[in-house]
């Protein structure tokens, strides 16, 4: 979400809200490419075989054989590059390989890649692949892993982030307990209730407290709790370490007030 991070881009939408997209890395781009090749190369092979079969039936001269052989080579190229073009146009920027890797082509302004943009990035694939794989070199140095075709088309390949479910997003953070054991029953818990339980929960689920601060806070909270519970000076609970005491109170309260 921070535009200074290399692996995300920020897009300002027309509603003036900034959206964060995760940029697909070189590795997943290349794996997607390999997966697509597993589809594209067999299709290309079939195309060559069909072309040659057609030629072997109809060609009658040596000159014609030369034309047919050279033509088959070009045809293979068109089918191979055409696969990516057609697949991206049909799926809206998600070839089968990209789909499998959870990648997607979008325009740098966050809108969907349209026909024109997909045409540019696929015709420019000729340079990216054809000119000694310059595309991979450029992707390696380009901060957003864009190849020449992406730069020309104003597109970028992003990762579809896994959809966090709303329930998971709104669930309270987990309680960090040192002992999951509720311990012996504490007297006087009927003096306190759900409100105190929630307050203890906030303390217990708070990450990143330094050990010293956590211990100080725990001692303070434990002292107040002991007073609220009205425990006698001789009560064994007073001898427990403050954090253990808080955890046990929390666990027992949680059972009383589900």
């Amino acid at each position: 979400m921070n535009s200074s991070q290399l692996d995300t881009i920020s897009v300002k939408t027309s509603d003036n809200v900034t959206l964060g997209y995760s940029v697909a890395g070189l590795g997943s781009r290349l794996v997607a490419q390999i997966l697509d090749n597993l589809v594209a190369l067999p299709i290309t092979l079939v195309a060559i075989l069909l072309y040659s079969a057609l030629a072997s039936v109809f060609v009658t001269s040596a000159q014609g054989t030369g034309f047919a052989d050279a033509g088959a080579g070009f045809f293979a190229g068109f089918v191979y590059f055409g696969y990516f073009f057609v697949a991206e146009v049909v799926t809206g920027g998600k070839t089968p390989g990209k789909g499998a890797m959870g990648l997607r082509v979008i325009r740098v302004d966050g809108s969907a890649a349209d026909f024109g943009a997909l045409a540019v990035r696929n015709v420019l694939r000729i340079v990216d692949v054809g000119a000694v794989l310059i595309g991979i070199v450029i992707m390696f140095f380009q901060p957003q892993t864009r190849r020449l075709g992406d730069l020309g088309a104003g597109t970028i390949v992003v990762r579809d982030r896994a959809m966090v479910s709303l329930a998971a997003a709104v669930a309270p953070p987990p309680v960090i307990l040192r002992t999951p054991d509720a311990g012996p029953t504490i007297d006087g818990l009927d003096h306190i209730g759900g409100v105190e339980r929630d307050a203890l929960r906030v303390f217990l689920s708070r990450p990143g407290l330094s050990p010293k601060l956590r211990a100080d806070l725990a001692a303070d909270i434990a002292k107040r709790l002991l007073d609220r519970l009205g425990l006698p000076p001789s009560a064994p609970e007073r001898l427990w370490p403050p954090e253990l005491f808080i955890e046990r109170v929390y666990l027992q309260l949680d059972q009383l007030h589900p």
Partner: protein
Amino acid sequence: MSLDTFIAERQGRWGALEAAIKTAKRGRLRNQSASDIERFGLLLRQTSSDLAIARRDHPDAPITEYLNTLCARAHPLLYRGRPWRLGAIAPFFATALPRSFRAAWPYIVTSLGLMLMGFIAGWLAVDLRPDLRASLVPPSLFDEMARGQIGTGVQDAPFAAAFIIQNNIRVALICFAGGMLLGIPTAFLLLTNGWMLGTVAAAVHLGGYDFQFWSLIVPHGVLELSVIVISGGTGLMLGDAILRPGRLRRGEALARVAVRAVLLALGAATLLIIAGTLEAFVSPSSLPDGVKLAIGAGVGVLLYSWLILAGRAPRRRPGFAFDRPAETPA
């Protein structure tokens, strides 16, 4: 507002947007009713304003990441360019292609200039350096001239046509794509194509076979060379956008030009199907040379009337001020 009330008050519409995203097929909202799409737009605007609030008030809460993912998914469903339809092909050739041809004229003229430079250089090389002639011109050409007949008939013309068409489309697309390398490969292709034609034309001229030679070139060459010049022009457009982006960032300048250029290049490349068919069936045929030249001239007149005249805005009669289209400020 506390995080809990924020979520409790607004999670209804987030769930609704989530459900609406799931109904999109293949990244599109097609096949949905107008009111559904309108509702989608409303939900997206509301949710993205919730995202803005969450970013400000709870930057590290998981809900902010949730809202970002939700909006990032929904945004491209609503914001997109024109969809690709088969029905868009006819208007593209009728108006859009000639218009972008005319808009690109400085680049196309430059491209033509490069090809002519190659042609003149090739011609001069053959003319001025008799000692290099044998290496500049294919020797078979001299044999053919000695026999009194240049150009041999083409056998298996359909496969010849397929070969020629594919080769020329390949060259045209490389001319465009070469623009990404500052147009250097583009210029190189234009110069060498002109050079090859120039050397052969000069050799034929020295042998006195001009008429026969041009009757072999012109029927398809008018179309073929025009397309190569046009696609060369599109490559130069890209190169120019990279070299002189003006007030835009280079990437933006490039992306703006590239979509127009690629459609011009692809559209022009389809004409190579006609050119290649002529090259395999008409140019080497036994038709009288005069007829072949006439065919070439006819194709040229059709091509350029279309490119120059089609898709012009009808000239309006001056009327009231509000009748006229608003003038764009200079």
